Structure formats: structure tokens, C-alpha cells
């Protein structure tokens, strides 16, 4: 999980409170406070300016140049962006990333919602605490370390997974050496580590649904699946929307798992967009190409966020 952002819903709420909860206006005039305001804002704004605003502008400019640091930058127009369609490695890595995002997010959301519903159902407190902790535990580990561990577990010759499958007479699978196997492992390892995040979000969303709604519906004869379909699903939809957007944004940036476990291989089968940013900038010194790919990635993230804004206005049920 790498980038942080608030939900648009809470942004809006934040801006609304901003309008209504004005601090005492007399503080505006006080001299000492003016100094304090600028001194207190300075570290954050100098920092964000130097390390986010200027870099993003620099990236936008750099994306139109060819630059290897050593020789002078050369203007190339949209050539770097065209690599997306011309350069097979760049193109495949984007297709891989998008395919990965779709499958990983669907799997992650399904697993985390199902487990959140089970954990929030009636059970002793100690059991709930145990399951909740156990299920989000992987979130606190380093993705690089987890990937090291998993590359041993999925090792073709001596890995525990193949040994276990061997008990059922299944021959040794080349998990990390075949295209499909490597894709499955990257997906499993990523979801294994990250489902805990959407799981926590769903737990919060489920806890906010009033018990009375379920009681009323069971008096009306609704049970099991119908309750899930007609009560849980619509009432939890704001959480589902936020969870899917955050899961998509996080999955778009996948790097650690394929870098450590497969190096993008076999061939380019598990190469992702961020791996191409890394390779083109820091292995091939194609800083312009790396910037262009980064800009495309940012545009994708902005697009997903914009869609979230629209959807949250139209379809989501705010109870």
C-alpha cells in the first residue's frame, strides 16, 4: 500500500465543516498568530513544494524529452508516450498491470467482504479479536520480505506448496518459471498481503449498519442471501466504492512482489508499469520515457478518482 488519500466523502465533509466552524475572527488580527501561521505551514509547504509539486511539473516536461543525464536533453514530442504502443515491453507491462488490477481487486474485495461479514457476525469477543488481528496481520509486514518468503514456498523443487500438492499426486508446478504460474503467484502474494486493508474498511462499514434494519427484515421473512443482497450490499455500498478505488490505486502501483519474486519474468509476463519506470530510469537511463509512463499512471489514478466522485453522487446509497 503506498499512497494515502482521504475519501471524497470525508473531503466534502471536511470542507463543509471548514465553512461552518470558523475560528474566532479576532484571531485574524493578532500579530503573533500571523507569524505562527507561516512558520507552522512552512515545513509542510516547502517539503511538498520541493518533493511533490516541482517534481510533478518536472516530470510533465521531462516526458517530452529524451535525456540520459549525460548528454543534453533532446525534445522528442510525444515519442515517449508512443512507446506505449510501439515498444512491446512497455505495452505488455501496461496490459499486465491493468489485467492484474482487475483480477486482484475483484478477488481482494470478494475475500475481504466475505471475511468481514463472518468476523462481524455473532461470536465471542475474544474470537472476534483473534480473527480480526490474524487476518490483517500481513499488512504490517514488508512486501519485499514477504516476497522472499513466498518465493521459497512456491519454489518448484523444494517449495512447500509443490510438496503439499505432491501428496495428491500433482506433479511439480513451475510456479515462478511459467508465465501463468508467475502471474498467479504475484496475484496471490499481493492479495495475501493487502486484503487486510479492505477487510478493515468493510468491518468499519458493517459496524455502522444499524441492527434494527436486519431485525425488521427478518420479521418480514428475509434471510441469508436476500438480506445480503437487499440490505448489506446497498447499505455498505459507500464503503465498497471507497475500498475498490483505494484497492485499484494501490494495485496500479505494484512493484515489490514481481521485482523480488520474478524480476518481471519469465520474459515480460509479470512486468508491471512501475517496473518499467524503474528499469527505464535507473537501468537504461531513459529518464524521459520513465516520466512519460509515470504521467500515464497518474492520469489513470486521477481517472479512477474522478469516476469515484461521479459514482458516489449517482449510485451510492447514503443511509
Amino acid at each position, binding site marked *: 500500500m*503506498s*499512497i*494515502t*488519500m*482521504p475519501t471524497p466523502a470525508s473531503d466534502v465533509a471536511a*470542507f463543509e*465543516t*471548514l465553512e461552518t466552524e*470558523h*475560528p474566532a*475572527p479576532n*484571531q485574524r488580527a493578532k500579530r*503573533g*498568530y500571523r507569524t505562527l*501561521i507561516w512558520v*507552522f*505551514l512552512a*515545513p*509542510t509547504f516547502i*517539503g*511538498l513544494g520541493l*518533493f*511533490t509539486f516541482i*517534481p*510533478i511539473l*518536472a*516530470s510533465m516536461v*521531462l516526458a517530452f524529452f529524451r535525456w540520459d543525464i549525460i548528454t543534453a536533453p533532446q525534445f522528442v514530442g510525444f515519442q515517449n508516450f508512443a512507446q506505449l504502443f510501439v515498444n512491446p515491453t512497455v505495452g505488455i507491462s501496461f496490459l499486465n498491470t491493468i489485467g492484474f488490477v482487475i483480477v486482484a481487486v475483484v478477488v481482494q474485495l470478494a475475500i475481504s467482504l466475505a*471475511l468481514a*461479514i*463472518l468476523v*462481524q457476525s*455473532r461470536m465471542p469477543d475474544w474470537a472476534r479479536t483473534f480473527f480480526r*488481528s490474524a487476518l490483517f*496481520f500481513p*499488512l*504490517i*509486514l*514488508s*512486501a*519485499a*520480505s514477504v516476497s*522472499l*518468503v513466498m518465493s521459497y*514456498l512456491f519454489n518448484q523443487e523444494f517449495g512447500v506448496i509443490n510438496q503439499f500438492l505432491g501428496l495428491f499426486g500433482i506433479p511439480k508446478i513451475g510456479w515462478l518459471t511459467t508465465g501463468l504460474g508467475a502471474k498467479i503467484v504475484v496475484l496471490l502474494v499481493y492479495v*495475501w498481503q493487502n486484503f487486510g486493508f479492505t477487510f478493515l*474498511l468493510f468491518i468499519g462499514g458493517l459496524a455502522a449498519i444499524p441492527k434494527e434494519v436486519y*431485525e425488521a427484515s*427478518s420479521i418480514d421473512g428475509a434471510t441469508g442471501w436476500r438480506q445480503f443482497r437487499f440490505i448489506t450490499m446497498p447499505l455498505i455500498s459507500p464503503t465498497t466504492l*471507497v475500498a475498490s478505488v483505494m484497492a485499484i490505486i494501490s494495485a496500479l*502501483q505494484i*512493484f515489490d512482489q514481481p521485482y*523480488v519474486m520474478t524480476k518481471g519474468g519469465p520474459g515480460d509476463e509479470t512486468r508491471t508499469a512501475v517496473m518499467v*519506470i*524503474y528499469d527505464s*530510469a*535507473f537501468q537504461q537511463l531513459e529518464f524521459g520515457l520513465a*516520466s512519460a509512463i*509515470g504521467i500515464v499512471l497518474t492520469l489513470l*489514478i486521477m481517472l479512477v478518482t474522478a469516476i469515484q466522485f461521479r459514482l458516489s453522487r449517482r449510485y451510492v446509497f447514503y443511509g
Partner: protein
Amino acid sequence: MSVIEQVHRPSPWMRIGSVSKYLVLLVAAFLTLGPVVWTAITALTPTDPATQTSQFGFAAFADVFVQVPFWLFTWNSALVTLLIAAGQMLSAAMAGYVFARFDFKGKNLLFALVLATMMVPMQVTIVPVFMLVRGMGLADTLLALIIPALPTAFGTFLMRQYFMGMPPELGEAAEIDGAGPWKVFFSIYLPLSAPGLAIVGILAFNYHWNEFFRPLIMTISEENFTLPLGLVSLQGNLGSGSVSTVLAGVILSMIPAIFVFIFGQRPLREGLTAGSGK
């Protein structure tokens, strides 16, 4: 599901449902904890290269310190993580306080700018940040990891929310008693914001103790490696020969994170889901 059980008489089907519920959860817990337990067991039973037999013991743990400067990696990781966490707590508290408590021209625009930076993925800014850090003469130093990570948009957002929850009368009362603007912040609001600061600090710890991408780019010499980078390079050097040694390193590097998980789980959970951010 819980409510169905409360309202209806328990039928045999419900009992089966309840058993399978625990079964599913137990399998899920086994799958999340299993790999970690396997890592610990394998680290504790290294294979002797001479006899090819596994023996229980801490030999693999000792071997980590022989193969790589493990203490140095730990020190680097601790230094980077703690300085970033402290810096983020302070800068976020100050900026969040200003956004929550004062009114001034351009405030909404400035706050919107802070929120906007949360949409920019770090991988997009990494090339210019790398150039900038290099230009500052910080290439291949720990400062290259620390300084760019000090400002935090999400932490600022979180602390602003936190300070907005505090009554303005607190500060006003202190002002009447003669406290100046700095004193009001440092001796009244800042101490009261400790739980919010804990969230910012723990999130910073969780992220930077484990991060891999930035150290991979910003550091070149082994003496500047942080733990995740050091472990990956250890595996690269050893090949598949000494699985136990690599896994012992993994286990050791997890210890601080597990401490935070046990003693700081509440702020960790709150932080991860606060504003649905992570």
C-alpha cells in the same frame, strides 16, 4: 447473520452455518499466519551443509550477522524510520493546527493543494526527486530517504481533523491567562493531540520500516541499505543454499513491526481506516 440467530429459533441449518463460519475463518487465519510460522520454523531448523540434516538451533540467526552487516541495516532502518516518523508528526501537527484553528486568506486553496498531492503516486515524482537529491549532494545517503519523506499530506489532513475536534475555548482560556500563541500550541494543544500524533507516527513507521522502492533507488552502497533492501540482496548473494539464513533475517526484521502490531494495534487500525487512508 448474527441477527438472524437472535430473532429466529436456532435450526439445525443455522448450527451448520455457525460451524462452517468458524471453519472458514480458521482456514483464513491459517493461511495468513501459516507462512509466518513456517518462516520461523525454517529459520530455527537450518540445514547443516556437511551432513544435509536439519537441526534445531539459532545457527541461522548467527549466520545473518556473518553474511551481511545486519546491525548496520537495522540501525539504518531505525534511523530512517524514526526520523521520518518524528518529522511527520511535528510538521503534520503544526500545519494541521493552523488549518484547523485559524482563518486567513488563501487557506482553502492551500488545503486543497495539500489534498491534491495525495493523488500523485510516489513513482511519478521519483525521477525528479532523485535528480534533486543528487543535486543537493545527498545521493546514496540516508538523508536522501529521510528528507523527501518529511512532509505528509495525509498526516496533515489527519491532524487537522484531530484539532478540529478540540474546543477553541481551551486556547482562548489560556490566552486570557496570558499565554502567547506558541505557548498555547506547545503546552495545551500539542499534548492533547497525542493520540492523533500516535496514529501519524505509527503509520509512518509501518510504511517506512517496510518500504523497498525508494531505498532501492536512493541507496547504492551496502552500508546505506535498509533492512528490506539488505535482505533481498542477502538472498541474491546466497542463492537457494541458505534458506534458513535469509528467513532468520526476515524474522529479525519483523520484530519491531510485531511490537507495534501488538501494542499499537488500535491507533494502527484507526490510522489505516481514518478517512479511509493508507
